[in-house]
């Protein structure tokens, strides 16, 4: 896909004419959601790398908050929240089956993703930035409780027709749940490196671990996940 430029007044920013452009920072897990959604849905797109510490001068014109993981659609609309973009991709390309079509199935899927958004993903950051061992421990307990709850939900889902015995939320299909959560599951390597923390291999986490293992082997996610060393180095900056 060719990159074209347009002029807005006397300003310029790069984008793909008649296509989807993703402006991203490859080490950012939120951005990985967006890239992963496009890959899994099989939708052509081009990427423009943005250095979040030093964005190009034109970036504020495209996205004033200067966050990355931004999508420019073919008609010029700019979307700048990863979950809204993933829902948009699922919605716009229904034949990719990223989500189920029934309202209850979609609600259960969104609940599962919200479990991670509130009780898992942000806790990874708080464990890394925790300045006392006590706080690291208490936050670790929270993370583990989130993983246990996720394990219970996975088991319930795998017994439903739509869950088809796993290993993914929608049976053998890597979809919305995995797209939204895989980049954060991948950060567990950072917790292990800096905090010696691992998810136990016990029964309460069995479904979670089975799912995590399947996610880590998926080819679509493999294309967007950075090398472990790079992730560890990047997140080292947060560690107190």
């Amino acid at each position: 896909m060719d990159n074209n430029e347009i002029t807005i007044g006397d300003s310029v920013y790069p984008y793909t004419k008649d296509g989807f452009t993703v402006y991203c920072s490859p080490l950012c897990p939120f951005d990985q959601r967006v890239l992963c959604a496009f890959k899994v849905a099989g939708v052509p797109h081009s990427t423009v790398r943005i250095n979040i510490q030093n964005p190009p001068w034109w970036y504020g014109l495209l996205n004033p908050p200067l966050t990355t993981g931004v999508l420019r659609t073919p008609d010029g609309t700019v979307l700048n929240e990863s979950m809204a973009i993933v829902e948009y991709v699922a919605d716009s390309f229904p034949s990719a089956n990223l989500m189920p079509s029934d309202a209850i199935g979609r609600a259960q899927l969104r609940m599962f993703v919200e479990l991670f958004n509130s009780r898992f993903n942000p806790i990874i950051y708080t464990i890394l930035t925790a300045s006392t061992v006590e706080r690291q421990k208490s936050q670790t307990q929270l993370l583990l409780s989130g993983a246990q709850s996720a394990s219970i939900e996975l088991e319930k889902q795998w017994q439903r027709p739509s869950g088809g015995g796993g290993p993914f939320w929608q049976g053998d299909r890597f979809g919305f749940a995995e797209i939204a959560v895989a980049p954060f599951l991948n950060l567990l390597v950072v917790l292990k490196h800096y905090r010696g923390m691992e998810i136990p291999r016990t029964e309460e986490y069995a479904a979670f671990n089975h799912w995590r293992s399947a996610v880590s082997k998926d080819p679509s996610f493999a294309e967007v996940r950075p090398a472990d060393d790079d992730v560890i180095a990047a997140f080292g900056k947060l560690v107190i």
Partner: protein
Amino acid sequence: MSSTAIPYEKNGYTLYSNHLCPYAQRALRAFKAAGVPHKVVEIDLNNKPAWYAQVNPQLKVPALKTPDGTILIESLVVAEYVAEEFPSAGLLPSSALERAQLRLFIEIFSSRFNPFIYRILGTSDADEQKKHTETLLSGIRAASKELQEQWERPSGQGGPFWANGRFGFAEIALVSLVNLLTVVDHYRGVKVPETQDYAAFNRWRDAFTKDPLFTEFNPSQDVLFSAYKKFVVDN
């Protein structure tokens, strides 16, 4: 404990709720706007019934039990479920792009407004209050800008609601949280300026405040202030 201890509507929707909780109000408004019959079970958040853990182990409201027995939690998930299950109510926009723009608008509040209401109340430190108020106001300015852009789109119809000239999903998701501005004004003197930066937001707020879908579920000011006293830290 037997499951018959849990009150629910057989073959119908049961919404476990609390009339003062802004998150539960999202679900109440969604059902009302969609015109879907439902039973409301009020949960006293200061004295939760023992059986409620079986409905929602997280012990939060709202929770929805659907006719086939499925339990849904998380207020936005419940509201979105109602909108998707009953599409003829027209609560959600028809195109994927418009739905994405609506989600972005709601997210402005989730990240830059809702938590800061509680943070402003929850600190007695004047500098901290000021800092959180700055963030809140910056979120409101971002929302105001988004409203202006939306009103120029076909679905925006020039406002004052988000879309289609009526109280819809954006309002369902946001009015109860925006209304907490009355609480931070009461306890902390926080006010939204009347300047151009806030004009669209103020116009939107004025419009929805008069709508029956807002007033039906909005507690009186006295009741609201009294309910929020427990979040106010003044040491």
